[in-house]
């Protein structure tokens, strides 16, 4: 089985967020594998271990993503590919990323492509379905279970809390939802082995793409932090008075009831 994982290096959103020069301040921030992509990597490894084959983890980004790709290799992926767009593209969007990935994947004869259902930084969740559409293969998003039986693939999809059992066939692209598995931590031997595993680096030229081909269709014109919320009012006094006061406040001050 020829398995590809789409991985994004993301800002750890548990970090404090600040803005400088109109952008999110990344100085000293922690960067991680997008948590949903960790599920994707884990699932890919499990499928490979059961079915045989190879797992290649692909990331579109800058040289800095090498660290997260090495982590994926240490978890057990076989190969990693960094498509480094740092010098070519200043502000890409989901159209950009999907087009690059699709261009890379088009002749790879992937049986299974797995990504996270959304990245926790940008939060768009577009890249997976876009890539599948461009490759002409079916997709299922937000999956919590994956079973492969020959060419038949049965997945459980999370749909706003309900679940759907969906049957499809290889090749297919799926995106991972929390609950799909428990991603492993890289082991020490895994980390040692990862150093020797191939990590290829490509640029747009290698994919026969021009900057114009992948130029973003949307643009961010401003990034800002939500207005600081004033400390709320913790009610005081006798509990029954607090209850009366709260209902009154919700009714007359906040006017939500």
């Amino acid at each position: 089985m020829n398995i590809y994982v789409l991985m994004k290096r993301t800002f750890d959103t548990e970090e404090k967020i600040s803005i400088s020069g109109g952008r999110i301040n990344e100085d000293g921030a922690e960067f991680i594998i997008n948590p949903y992509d960790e599920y994707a990597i884990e699932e890919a490894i499990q499928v490979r271990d059961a079915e045989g084959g190879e797992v290649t983890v692909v990331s579109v980004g800058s040289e800095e993503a090498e660290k997260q790709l090495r982590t994926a290799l240490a978890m057990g992926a076989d190969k990693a590919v960094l498509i480094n767009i740092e010098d070519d593209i200043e502000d890409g969007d989901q159209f950009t990323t999907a087009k690059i990935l699709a261009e890379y994947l088009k002749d790879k004869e992937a049986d299974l492509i797995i990504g996270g259902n959304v990245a926790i930084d940008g939060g768009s969740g577009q890249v997976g379905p876009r890539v599948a559409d461009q490759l002409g293969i079916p997709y299922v998003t937000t999956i919590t279970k994956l079973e492969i039986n020959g060419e038949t693939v049965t997945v459980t999809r999370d749909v706003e809390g309900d679940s759907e059992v969906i049957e499809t066939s290889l090749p297919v692209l799926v995106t991972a939802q929390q609950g799909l598995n428990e991603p492993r931590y890289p082991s020490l031997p895994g980390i040692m082995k990862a150093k020797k595993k191939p990590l290829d680096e490509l640029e747009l030229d290698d994919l026969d793409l021009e900057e114009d081909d992948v130029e973003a269709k949307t643009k961010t014109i401003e990034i800002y932090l939500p207005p600081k919320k004033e400390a709320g009012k913790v009610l005081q006094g006798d509990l029954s008075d607090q209850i009366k006061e709260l209902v009154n406040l919700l009714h007359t001050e906040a006017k939500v009831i």
Partner: protein
Amino acid sequence: MARKVLTLGEVRDGALRNVSFETIGAAKIAAEGGEVVSVLIGNDVKSLGAELIQYGADRVVVVEDEKLVQYTPDGYSQALMTVIDGEKPEGLIFGHTALGKDLAPKIASKLQSGLISDATSVEEAGGNLVFTRPIYSGKAFEKKIVTDGLVFATIRPNNIAPLAKDESRSGEVSSLQADIKDLRTVIKEVVRKASEGVDLSEAKVVIAGGRGVKSEDGFEPLKELASVLGGAVGASRGACDAEYCDYSLQIGQTGKVVTPDLYIACGISGAIQHLAGMSNSKVIVAINKDPEANIFKVADYGIVGDLFEVVPMLTEEFRKLKVHS
């Protein structure tokens, strides 16, 4: 610049979801005076078209087929692309729902267009249509514009107001035949776990329980309060992990994102992952025994106390208010 904008109506259990009307509200802004056409896809859904007109759509185009009873990306994209080929819109607005999130990127790919996902507002500013959307799990916002191609966005439910319903409005509801074939994903079974009644992601009032609820039964007082306020019950991941309730109720970074008018957090400490799912609610009330709980930092009003004491009293007080008003 006036443009023609298509919206996608969403049907659940035989009725239009509220987000269908919100997409029309957003489309009216995006159309800048142009025509707003709502699309309804399914089987036996044409009768719902009139309501979309009452909420402001100028026309409704219905695509019906037995293969469209359930949503599949292939079926719906074939139906929608047939409409798009005929209508040639300059804008598209869907809800940022399970369906919209799944379908919109595929349509954007087919149209080779951009897509602004999960917008919480849209306005005309300085000659541009500006969409605002939360990023970094709701800890920051960005304003985005389309620089090339059509204006395409999905909107987060409960954020963009629908227009007032006008029952005197009328408009054309037409049917379009689409050739639906080769569905590559087949739904074998649907397991309903989400609570009956009020849809959590569209609820105006959400009563959420955390670890402090202590047991499955501990959710009962919350359910009662929700029913008095016509709201929905949600939960923190902690409560789901402890098996007090189903994961379908989970609110947070990995669960649902909700923005009700009123969010009452009961026995929820306020972990950052939970805040990502609810911090943009209009009014937040926190009930927690621990005065140091993080949830009080985002709450508008707080009561330090035992939820099992506070919630029933609150239910009683709201009941009185409802009787008097």
